[in-house]
């Protein structure tokens, strides 16, 4: 394939790809996301391919469709007919069209969602850039390069009020502006695809399933900020994710969408892939940057932001996978459109990983402001085994829990943070009434105790002491004063650690002491 050297060249290529495709031709999309892959969707693919070879039907292996609970998932287009729990022996019926499918917009899990980011997954073979181009891919990059100045791109992202999806909810536009304006001869952009938080799997669903969407956002951001070098930092233990990212980079480069003189605009940009090596703290921005340099991932104090001084002391703008994925639609459809979705302070849609005691585990995408009730009951199908709901936990080991009575709270960065359960990256753990909230705090602290890098004493020692107290409480050996000691330790680690891991390590505990204190008090025997 020849490198594209103009915006017109890209549109000619797109028209050519689209003209070769018959929209009426049936296509069977098999999900190979984390859940379906583990449930042997590969065997389903083989069976479908064998059957489809006899007819003029395509079988596409795609990224995550969303409803992991019912995998392996198959979607047949046109008509978007869903088949769940598909086994190899179901292949003849699906190919012949005799097996009964359910229209996607009639499946409760899907019909309450707004799938702006993940909705394309069933239509895309992640190893084929042509699939992304056929759906309008890289048009936003072309627009940003040829019809807008870098400042105009930055203004759109600021006006859209795109807030970081990785945990902090910091406005991406302001971060970009800081990196852009910091004095330096070189600056970098980074995709944080670390996703080390247990129960969070939406970023890999998006990145594995539609890598070009993330890459297009990254290139647009690099151009706006003035970076010529980018880094993707991601998991080493997901072979498909790595393969799809590396394939996407190679294909984008082959088409002239990456590398030197992108689309003939004169803008050069290259991307390297780096891997986390199985330690949670390396998802923290300053630690991640040390890791990219080849050093141990120890966080550093952030008196100076990484957007001013990051990798090799150069301005380094880091955003999470989902944040980057939002960029292309803001450029193509405009900041006003984007800002019309969501709440006053939280715009756009949010991916949520639903897990725990929920009927439908999976990846859902809803507009910001959606009540948690809709997510848990309408999309999630409620609590498994028809048990009563006890609590919802957001944000994994650095997040917080809220009780069932707050289930009408909207999905909103600020509303949830005010309740002590910040959205974090979007992992939502559903807990039924059999869940022990003292044990949950112990569980999260145990996780973080193992993950502490050991640099700050309050984190290294404080977490351990909190863990000891909580362990003895769960073993029926709670003592008078334990709760006060926990509160003290939580306050000190919250103040005296360098990075978010230490600072927020006691947040789950604090949220539980706020909303479930009676359970903690019940663990202190009278006279104990």
């Amino acid at each position, binding site marked *: 394939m020849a490198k594209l050297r103009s915006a017109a060249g890209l549109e000619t290529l797109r028209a050519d790809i689209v003209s070769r495709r018959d929209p009426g031709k049936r296509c069977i999309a098999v999900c190979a996301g*984390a*859940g379906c*892959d*583990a*449930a042997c969707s590969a065997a389903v693919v083989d069976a479908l391919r064998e059957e489809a070879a006899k007819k003029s039907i395509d079988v596409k292996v795609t990224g995550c469709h969303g409803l*992991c*609970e019912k*995998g392996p998932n198959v979607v047949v287009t046109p008509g978007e007919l869903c088949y769940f729990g598909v086994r190899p022996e179901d292949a003849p019926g699906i190919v012949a069209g005799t097996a009964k499918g359910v229209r996607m917009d009639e499946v409760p899990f899907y019909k309450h969602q707004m799938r702006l980011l993940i909705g394309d997954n069933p239509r895309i073979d992640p190893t084929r850039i042509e699939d992304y181009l056929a759906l309008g891919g890289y048009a936003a990059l072309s627009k940003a390069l040829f019809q807008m100045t870098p400042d105009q791109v930055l203004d759109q992202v600021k006006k859209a009020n795109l807030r970081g999806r990785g945990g902090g909810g910091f406005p991406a536009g302001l971060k970009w502006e800081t990196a852009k304006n910091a004095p330096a001869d070189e600056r970098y952009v980074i995709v944080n695809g670390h*996703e080390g*938080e*247990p*129960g*969070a*799997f939406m970023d*890999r*669903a998006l990145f594995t399933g539609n890598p070009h969407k993330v890459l297009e956002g990254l290139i647009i951001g690099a151009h706006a900020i003035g970076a010529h070098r980018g880094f993707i930092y991601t998991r*080493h*233990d*997901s072979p498909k994710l790595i393969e799809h990212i590396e394939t996407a980079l190679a294909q984008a480069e082959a088409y002239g969408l990456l590398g030197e003189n992108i689309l003939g605009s004169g803008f050069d940009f290259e991307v390297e892939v*780096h*891997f986390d*090596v*199985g*330690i949670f703290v390396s998802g923290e921005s300053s630690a991640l940057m040390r*890791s990219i*340099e*080849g050093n*141990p*991932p120890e966080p550093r104090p952030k008196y100076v932001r990484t957007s001013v001084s990051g990798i090799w002391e150069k301005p380094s703008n880091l955003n999470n996978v989902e944040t980057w994925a939002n960029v292309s639609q803001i450029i193509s459809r405009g900041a006003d459109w984007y800002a019309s979705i969501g709440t006053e302070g939280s715009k756009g849609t949010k991916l949520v*990983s639903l*897990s*725990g*005691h929920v009927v439908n*585990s*999976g990846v859902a995408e809803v507009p910001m402001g959606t009540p948690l009730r809709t997510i848990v009951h309408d999309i999630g199908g409620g609590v498994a085994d028809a048990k009563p709901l006890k609590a919802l*936990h957001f944000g*994994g*080991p650095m997040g917080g829990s809220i009780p069932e009575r707050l289930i009408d709270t909207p999905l909103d960065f600020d509303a949830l943070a005010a309740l002590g359960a910040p959205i974090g990256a979007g*992992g939502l*753990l559903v*807990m039924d009434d059999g*869940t022990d909230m003292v044990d*949950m705090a112990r*569980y*999260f602290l145990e*996780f973080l105790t*193992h993950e502490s890098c050991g640099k700050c004493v309050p984190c290294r020692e404080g977490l351990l002491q909190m863990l000891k107290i909580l362990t003895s409480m769960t073993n029926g050996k709670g003592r008078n004063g334990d709760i006060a000691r926990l509160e003290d330790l939580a306050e000190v680690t919250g103040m005296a650690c360098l990075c978010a891991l230490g600072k927020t390590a006691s947040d789950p505990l604090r949220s539980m002491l706020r909303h479930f204190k009676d359970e903690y008090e019940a663990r202190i025997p009278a006279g104990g």
Partner: protein
Amino acid sequence: MCSDKIDQILARHRGKPGALIRVLIEIQHEKRWLPKEALAKVAQALEVPLSRVTQIATFYKTFSLKPKGRHEVHVCTGSSCHVRGAARLLAEVQRMTGLKPGETDSESRFSLETGSCLGSCSLGPEIIVDGTHHARMTPAKVEGVLKRYS
């Protein structure tokens, strides 16, 4: 031993200190542990002090400085598996194998690992043996699963 493979990995990154972590990952994926001689070779090829190689190899949990068993048993202890009973499952795996997380038995049959949510929460609680997921596990099913691996 596949020292040829190690040499191939090193040849791709020779003289690039920044590739240290990547090289160690590739060797770990290839051999499933990092032999001492390999670390020395890495130091030499990448022109990095051996102390630095050792620092990285001992810091990150993915790297093992001890040989692993023929089968890697991974009990997911992510939050979703935890609320669905992973602790009872882990206790049963420990009882059956006599191993604690991180250990390998003397016959090199099993290595036991925990942690690291793999994102297949819909299947939890689960045990992953050599990459194959055994979904919606109960302690009673552990014996049947482990028996399949010798």
